[in-house]
């Protein structure tokens, strides 16, 4: 990994820049996910842009950024989303942290590698949605859940994650490279 955010000083210029950009990314993703996509009737489900943002930040900045942005994404999802978001901070945090750790070992800087990561993350998200709808919703139907929630959400999340692949990379590049004393 070329770009890492293991800074020594918590208030270094680069860290502050990164926090601002990451926050902006998470905020924008949360807003778009809860406003733009639901307004488009052609899509049967909104993509989980927050998840792809968390995965992107974890991949490019490491597990700590992944975990923190995961908590932030969870707060965004809970604040802007409706019911069914109660455990999302934990889910996003774990996703970001795990991705950061795994990416350190074997992430290749290309889209294929990105889609493998995103497929795994989106699968976890689908499982989360499926379990939630199965246990938390009354009169839930497994087939309906798969057809109208799980599968569309999975494909939409993976498809639109490519945007966050580049945006998360930008959030890591713009503040500048890690200095030697970091």
């Amino acid at each position, binding site marked *: 990994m070329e770009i890492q955010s293991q800074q020594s000083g918590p208030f270094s210029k680069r860290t502050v820049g990164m926090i601002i950009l990451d926050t902006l990314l998470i*905020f924008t993703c949360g*807003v778009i996910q809860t406003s733009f996509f639901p*307004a488009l009737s052609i899509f049967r489900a909104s993509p989980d842009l927050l998840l792809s943002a968390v995965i992107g930040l974890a991949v490019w900045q490491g597990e700590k950024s992944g975990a*923190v942005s995961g908590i932030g994404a969870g707060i965004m999802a809970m*604040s802007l989303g409706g019911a069914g978001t109660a455990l999302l901070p934990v889910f996003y*945090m774990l996703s970001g942290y795990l991705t950061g750790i795994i990416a350190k070992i074997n992430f290749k800087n290309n889209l294929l590698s990105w889609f493998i990561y995103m497929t795994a993350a989106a699968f976890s998200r689908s499982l989360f949605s499926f379990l939630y709808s199965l246990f938390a919703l009354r009169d839930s139907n497994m087939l309906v859940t798969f057809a109208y929630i799980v599968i569309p959400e999975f494909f939409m999340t993976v498809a639109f994650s490519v945007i966050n692949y580049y945006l998360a990379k930008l959030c890591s590049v713009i503040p500048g490279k890690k200095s030697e004393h970091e």
Partner: protein
Amino acid sequence: MNGLKKFFTSKFFIVSLAVAVLVSIVPSVLYFMGQGDYVKATVQLLATPFQWCFTKVGEGIDGYVVYFRRMSGLFEENRELKTELEENREKVYDAELVREENEFLRKYLGIKAEHSDFTFQDASVIGRESTNYRTEYTLSKGSMHGIEKNMPVITSDGLVGYVTEVGPTYCRAVPVTENAKSVGAYIERSGTLGVVEGSYSLSFGHLCLMSYIDPESDIRVGDVVTTSGVGSIYPRGLDIGVITEVGIDEGTRTLIATVKPFADFDNISRVMIVTSYELYSE
């Protein structure tokens, strides 16, 4: 394995997990305690204008997308409506034909009642030779239908002209306004006789000329001119037209009059050919 264990036992991970759990649980606890969630409210407050903007953008795009998605349906609907429209047009056209025929037959019955000695053959105008200097109608009946040359052609409005040429399934007729055969004419109000004939200069205004009128006779503008049945191919009593102008022929010192025929020569579509009639000798 130890390395991985280290990650999940690190202080950072434990703190993060604790925060995440708290963030997940606290709002629910606050909600059940009847307390407001200030973090949620603040985030929502900040996001609201942006959400509004993005929703509008999404709705705008969705409008276009829905429009194009509906296009295929609209094409199909349009095709069906066109077919339906075409069918209805045909029905209206048929109904119009029936109405016209009904009207024609009603008038035909009127003429038949008035002229019980007439026998008719109805015909449609299937062609016109309307050059700059001549008008001629091609009619849909010919020798196969008993049509012969010089048979009078009329409409319910009045005299049209006569048959000049006959084919097996068609015939041609010229109107009285053409400079062709003259018509023995009669003004019923004053009992005045004369001859109606076409005039090259008057034919452009669909008018004809009544001449050889006794200079002592009483004729006025507005008098109705009918066929006299004398010295021509036309039976007696067919309306020709109305006098619009009266003058003197300087050459013969007789009266002349301009006659405006009743028949609308521009819009004739169906005519009746008088195939036989009784001659009167008064």
